[in-house]
């Protein structure tokens, strides 16, 4: 207790020198924290052969730096990261190259040695927040495991000196006791004494200062050192400040530490949350808990494997902002695995582009993405949708085609009164009963819009916005609680069986999940043929001809007819789903997140396909998506939904250039790399 003599804190010269050294090591690091050289990873197949998942990959990560590895699925980006952690799945093993962490080769460590460095030298924030927390343990317990595994459950836990250097250049840290955490028990007394001290020091706005302290001094997260600094800054004399800090900050309990870590990761009400189970958490909250776990033992390197790809964009932005702040303050380096170029450009200083197991290009992230040189990077950059991208291909040309085709249609089916709007949704509301309560939940609340013939209307919203519920009601798969959906001016709820069949013929869906929307037991031929069969169109040979035509239409070889969905990639399946939707020559296609699950290049291809089909056939699209960047490429009009309500409805350009509502602005701001222009060289 008495170790802290006042004099010890009055050595600014020494402290400054120390921090300068710390700064220097960061600014001119001569050694990378992680050095991966010519890494080769193989997977052994059932038949004994080898699949080369990673070939000769080399990259470096310097202390405190964010490095992004980008690539499509199967590019080897995650495998490289897992090789670094020594956690390759299944039969994967490192067959060549070296992985050097802080100067020592870790590629051939024993299991025990690996256990020793995992957690304390490198941490992991995994991809899927739903499956990465054990459902049977409380969140707090799972954080505690991370502390205990690395001997961090003791009272003295050091934040790295490095971080201090950045948090405050005038660091005067001398005693390790300064690293003691505030405990929740001591906090009230600490605050009371601080108030008194501020009062004695004659500081004004005491309430405001105390409010600030209450917000900042998180038990288990902030240290005695920080308390003293805050008090000094608020106007308390140095000696007095250290005295208060020393008497009232004597170390926290493990529970405080756990909730402190969770609070650091941005989890509100952390102490209560720590006692809950994973299933009581939303996806975003689980991801925060995983970040807390990854950083619990203050690793020097954090491997973040698509940490936010399962989350809504606004949540993603919040979490990544927070992670950035946290790793900066701790001096943690981040190896950031992502498929999203915008995210990589925005978050990382250095970028590594991987393709088919190899590094094809690397360098400063903005430079690489603005001036890509490797053809693959160029291709990737061109395909990546962003705010800067425009409606795909020549909109005018398409427009002309559409009008022409529309006229064609008009002549074809004369006698019908054709309105400008093919689908009209009027005051649509849908309520669901919440399980085990009498409460009703409004999934869709008084939504009205209409789709102009031959154009695309996009409904944008995050999970829970009710956008898919709208789609299902438009498809007559779900009855509205109130309001109407009209097709060609007629209320679809009033259709009789025959009219409904006619409606089904003209309004077709393409669903999100390319793995779920085709029956795995049906061959491709049977899948595409099914609508013809249901509507009793043609005979066997004419159907076969029609299926062949449809495959041509979606640019698939006819040889896939006899294949099964499990043999095709996600993008190919989505093409088949489009071919099936086109089989009956529909007027309207409802795309429910039709491209969300696809890699950028494939997504780009499918979007072009949809666009070409619209141009050729005068189709109208209702395009449901969470991805605003895609909207810009495909939609003419945009409807923004939030919590079941329609927030904004305007043309695409208006929404992007002059968003009216705060929520729309937030959505736009959250688009990763939204304000970066990539691929400057091309076109």
């Amino acid at each position, binding site marked *: 207790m008495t170790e802290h003599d006042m004099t010890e804190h009055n050595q600014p010269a020494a402290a400054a020198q120390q921090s300068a050294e710390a700064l220097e090591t960061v600014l001119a690091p001569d050694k990378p924290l992680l050095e991966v050289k010519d890494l080769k990873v193989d997977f052994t197949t059932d038949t004994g052969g080898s699949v080369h998942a990673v070939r000769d990959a080399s990259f470096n990560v310097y202390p405190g730096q964010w490095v992004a590895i980008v690539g499509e699925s199967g590019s080897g980006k995650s495998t490289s990261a897992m090789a670094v952690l020594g956690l390759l*799945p299944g039969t994967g093993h490192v067959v060549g190259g070296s992985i050097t962490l802080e100067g020592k080769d870790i590629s051939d460590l024993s299991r025990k040695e690996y256990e020793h460095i995992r957690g304390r030298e490198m941490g992991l924030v*995994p991809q899927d927040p739903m499956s*990465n927390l054990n*459902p049977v343990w409380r969140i707090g317990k799972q954080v505690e*495991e991370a502390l205990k595994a690395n001997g961090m459950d003791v009272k003295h836990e050091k934040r790295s000196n490095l971080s201090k250097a950045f948090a405050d250049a005038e660091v005067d840290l001398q005693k390790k006791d300064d690293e003691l955490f505030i405990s929740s028990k001591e906090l009230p007394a600490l605050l009371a004494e601080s108030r008194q001290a501020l009062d004695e020091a004659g500081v004004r706005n005491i309430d405001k200062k105390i409010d600030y302290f209450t917000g900042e001094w998180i038990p288990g997260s902030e240290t005695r050192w920080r308390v003293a600094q805050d008090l000094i800054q608020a106007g308390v004399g140095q000696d007095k400040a250290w005295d208060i800090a020393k008497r009232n900050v004597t170390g926290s309990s493990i529970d405080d530490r756990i909730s402190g870590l969770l609070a650091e990761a941005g989890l509100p009400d952390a102490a209560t949350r720590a006692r809950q*189970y994973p299933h009581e958490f939303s996806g975003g909250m689980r991801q925060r808990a995983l970040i807390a776990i*990854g950083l619990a033992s203050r690793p020097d390197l954090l491997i973040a494997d698509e940490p936010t790809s399962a989350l809504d964009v606004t949540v993603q932005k919040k979490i990544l902002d927070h992670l950035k702040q946290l790793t900066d303050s701790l001096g943690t380096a981040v190896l950031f695995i992502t498929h999203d170029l915008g995210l990589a450009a925005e978050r990382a200083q250095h970028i590594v582009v991987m393709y088919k197991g190899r590094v094809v290009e690397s360098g400063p992230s903005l430079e690489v993405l603005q001036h890509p040189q490797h053809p693959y990077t160029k291709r990737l950059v061109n395909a990546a949708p962003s705010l800067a991208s425009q409606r795909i291909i020549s909109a005018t040309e398409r427009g002309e085609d559409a009008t022409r085709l529309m006229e064609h249609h008009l002549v074809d089916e004369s006698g019908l009164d054709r309105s400008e709007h093919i689908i009209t949704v009027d005051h649509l509301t849908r309520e669901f009963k919440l399980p085990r309560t009498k409460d009703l939940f409004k999934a869709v609340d008084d939504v009205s819009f209409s789709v102009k013939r031959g154009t695309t209307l996009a409904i944008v919203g995050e999970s829970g916005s009710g956008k898919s519920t709208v789609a299902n009601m438009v498809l007559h798969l779900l009855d509205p609680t109130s309001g109407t959906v009209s097709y060609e001016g007629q209320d679809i709820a009033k259709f009789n069986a025959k009219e409904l069949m006619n409606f089904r013929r003209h309004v077709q869906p393409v669903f999100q999940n390319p793995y779920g929307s085709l029956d795995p037991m049906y061959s491709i031929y049977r899948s595409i043929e099914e609508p013809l069969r249901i509507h009793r169109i043609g005979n066997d040979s004419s159907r076969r001809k029609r299926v062949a035509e449809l495959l041509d239409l979606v640019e698939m070889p006819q040889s896939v007819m006899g294949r099964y969905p499990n043999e095709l990639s996600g993008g190919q399946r989505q093409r088949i789903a489009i071919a099936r939707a086109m089989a009956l020559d529909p007027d309207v296609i409802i795309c429910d997140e039709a491209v969300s699950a696809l890699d950028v290049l494939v997504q780009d291809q499918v979007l072009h396909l949809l666009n070409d089909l619209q141009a050729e056939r005068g189709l109208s699209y209702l395009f449901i998506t969470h991805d605003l960047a895609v909207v810009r490429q495909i939609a003419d009009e945009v409807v923004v939904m939030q919590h079941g309500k329609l927030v904004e409805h305007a043309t695409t350009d208006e929404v992007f250039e002059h968003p009216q509502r705060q929520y729309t602005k937030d959505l736009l701001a959250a688009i990763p790399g939204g304000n970066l222009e990539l691929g400057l060289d091309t076109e």
Partner: protein
Amino acid sequence: MGKYLLRRVLQMIPVVIGTTLLIYALVFALPGDPVKAMFGDKPVNEAVAAQIRSEYNLDKPFIVQYLLFLKNALTLDFGKTFSGQQVIDVIGRAFPVTIKLALMAFVFEAIFGVIFGIISGLKKGKWYDTVILIVSLLLISVPTFVTGFVMQFVFGVKWHILPVTAGTNPGFLDLLMPAMVLGSVSMAYIIRLTRSEIASNMNEDYVRTARAKGMTNNAVTMRHILRNSMIPVVTYLGTDIGALMGGAMISERIFNIQGVGNTLYQGILRGEGTLVVSIVTILVLIFVICNLVVDLLYAVLDPRIRYA
């Protein structure tokens, strides 16, 4: 949790009524005269038959019969056997032995099933894994009564290690072999269940996350792989207590143990419908209660269930 418990107990009531009604109906309402069945191969004495009919309310409408049976059953009055004993007394004499036997079988299958299952699951592909797998497959394939005879012959008749039959008032050693026979099939199932659960849990994402935390292999195995794998195993074990009581008949026959199973068997041989229905009803009730306990246990083990 309290709500869940209440809901489960309430759900149990229709099941209990339904099962007892079903059993009662199977014995007393199916074509085939239960009274005639009581006489077995002997000629039917109509006077005695009429007396039996009125004694068991068989002359009343079926649903009234059932309600009377239920009412009496609630007061533990199950009627009398042919020899004039109270059924409840007969059952009371038989139950302690069977409970002892079932518990021994339970302990045997739980300990060895889980231990061998864990060894096999954690050391997949090793030679002893293969041996454990083959043995468990054999135990499942060979009917209990065959296993029983084989063990009786080998350990009892040939080697004289364990008593050949148990006799009246059997002790621990007398019941050891019958209990092993009784628990052998379930043990094999537990081995297989444990093994496959461990195998699937090992590949869970949260196990990888736990390793990434820096936890030692032992800690990951204990806290994540085994803890999660035990949920279905404990569930199986719980349901099995009830099943063991019912399945004890074969073991009791082979080793001549005067328990519930043997009493039931004698009842069947003599065609004593009342005795059979009473015993089966009690066994089914035990089974249903075990299932309820398992459901509650499940909720304790898996927090997700509590809120579902």
